[in-house]
């Protein structure tokens, strides 16, 4: 079982092996993504210090499924709230006060509501982390010195080695044609600068 998990993690880490290209600004990054998609690349991702409006569409990602998962979490919290109050006050230890009903909806609403919110919020954060495979203590992208700027003012485009069209030289050429400032090949061994100096001068 441990080896299965290990393989799974290795697969996951391998998705970061590929070419990492830096662009000057969100606009040129977006243009490059659109152009590379037109050339047929599909396994690409961008890295930016903030979420770029419209990039999901440019990469071809649909809407996040998170909402549906949170809905299930919320339902679970709601059900727990109903069950907890009904079972404790009407089944486990019923107390007859002035012949009022042992369980009724109205006074139970606040706690049902609060538990629903709590479960939804926990699901939202938990599922967001799970879908993003975070926390991720190892990521080959961190071998790239340049990549530290992805959380400051750097805009990066990454093409996975597993992409069908991937060819180290040709893809690097394509990236530089689309205006990449610098290109690196990132693998588990480290990052290697593959920017062709003449192609920079051309653009």
């Amino acid at each position, binding site marked *: 079982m441990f080896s299965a998990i290990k393989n799974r993690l290795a697969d996951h880490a391998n998705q970061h092996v590929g070419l990492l290209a830096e662009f000057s600004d969100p606009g040129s990054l977006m243009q490059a993504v659109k152009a590379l998609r037109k050339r047929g690349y599909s396994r690409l991702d961008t890295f*930016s210090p903030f979420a770029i409006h419209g990039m999901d569409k440019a*990469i071809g*990602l649909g809407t996040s499924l998170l909402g549906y998962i949170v809905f299930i979490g919320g339902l679970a919290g709601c059900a727990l709230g109903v069950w907890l109050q009904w079972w404790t006050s009407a089944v486990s230890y019923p107390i007859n006060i002035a012949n009022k009903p042992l369980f009724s909806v109205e006074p139970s609403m606040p706690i049902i509501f609060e538990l629903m919110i*709590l479960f939804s919020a926990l699901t939202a954060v938990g599922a967001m982390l799970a879908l993003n495979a975070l926390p991720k203590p190892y990521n080959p992208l961190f071998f790239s010195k340049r990549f530290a700027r992805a959380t400051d003012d750097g805009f990066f485009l990454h093409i996975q080695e597993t992409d069908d069209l991937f060819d180290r030289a040709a893809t690097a050429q394509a990236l530089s044609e689309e205006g990449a400032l610098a290109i690196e090949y990132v693998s588990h061994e480290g990052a290697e600068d593959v920017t062709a100096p003449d192609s920079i001068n051309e653009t």
Partner: protein
Amino acid sequence: MATTSTSYDESSLAYPAGVPKTLEDAPLVGGNLSFHDVTELIAGHNEKKTPLFWFFGFSVALFLLGIFGLSISYLVWNGTGTWGVNNPVGWGWAIVNFVWWVGIGHAGTLISAILFLFRQRWRTSINRAAEAMTLFAVACALVFPTFHTGRPWLDYWMMPVPNQMALWPQFKSPLMWDVFAVSIYGMVSLLFWYTGLIPDLATLRDRATGLRQKIIGIMALGWTGSNRHWRHYDRAYLILAGLATPLVLSVHSVVSFDFAVSIVPGWHTTIFPPYFVAGAIFSGFAMVMTLLLVARKAYNLQNLITLDHLEKMNLIILLTGSIVGFAYITEFFMAWYSGVAYEQYAFRNRAFGDYAWAYWIMMSCNLLLPQLYWVKKFRRSIPLMFTIAIVVNIGMWFERFVIVVSSLHRDYLPSSWDYYSPTIWDAGIYLGTFGLFFTLFFLFLRFFPMVAIAEIKGVLPQANPHYYDHGQGDGHAGEAPKAAVSAKTDEVG
């Protein structure tokens, strides 16, 4: 990058011609900052040498925290009798302070969640600090009910924990609802705050070295800024905002149920939930204002927290203050209109009885003084807004004092009427919670990015990819008209 305020207007022309200009058109961030400038401006404060004023402020806070420890120890050793509470006033300063602190916390959630849903993008400058304030205020608030139980080591009885007595909490009691509402509010606020922090912690991580990098790296969870991550992250953030919005409204409603569900004259009113929520936001904005006016000066954040932001906050203070004032007057009308003698007496006693001084402090601080904000000049005057913020905080404390004490001290049975006064230990604990609050706040300022770095970058004009469509000679000039069209359809869709 030549980004003047005029180029901002040009590039962010999301509004078709003919639509009136809104406040949104003014640049949200002053000083034409680049992305890197924003990082430097905010993260720099966490990295450079601790300024002297921080040590000064932190020691004052620690001194107050010492008073807190002393007062709590004395209280736990001797019991709640050390407070001035007795029959008929069983809820003294402790509950006043509880409601006051919870209320202050609400502004943080309003800024981070409700203004987010309303697409008020100016909130990005203040939401981080306001959310931190929420967390610390809730921590201070929880101190009071925790110790008011008298035997805090048995507080786990409030949780539905199976026990040898086979007893369960009474879920039909508003006090029980309060336990759930406030503790869940604290937890959800923490989640929301931490989620917002993840990208900024990654920024700090990538600038740090050595052990510092490792520690921050663990907290940043390996965030890279991948667009595939941003997609789920943004959705999670939106959902959390959508959850926190009804939550924050419910929390102070539930707090008001503590009063409204009872049969004490002056408490038993249906106006309480909205009136408490408005009051909470009112006092909370005043507290945010107090903290940020100092922080923006001390940390040179005038370009991020601009006078426009402060003015908008003052408008919210004016709005909520007027709602609260309207509620005060409505209560009087309803007492008269109900024809109930007890109710009428309770309100006559409030305004003209033993605690009339507290009532009129409340009225002048909350209803009258914020009305100055109808004048634009006053809304933009920093010394005045600092004064009013403090006055509003005082006024809102007195509002809770009036509600709790003036209603209880004259209940149905005249033979038990009494005049309530606090003891020095009431004051010690109240002062002590300021120590707790400011100790946490100073630690926050020192170790966490006090403004949301990623969000600020997201509202800069150059963050919009279409900002570059009108650019010159970047190889896409020929596509410019097409791109401009797609920009418009993007905005609609």
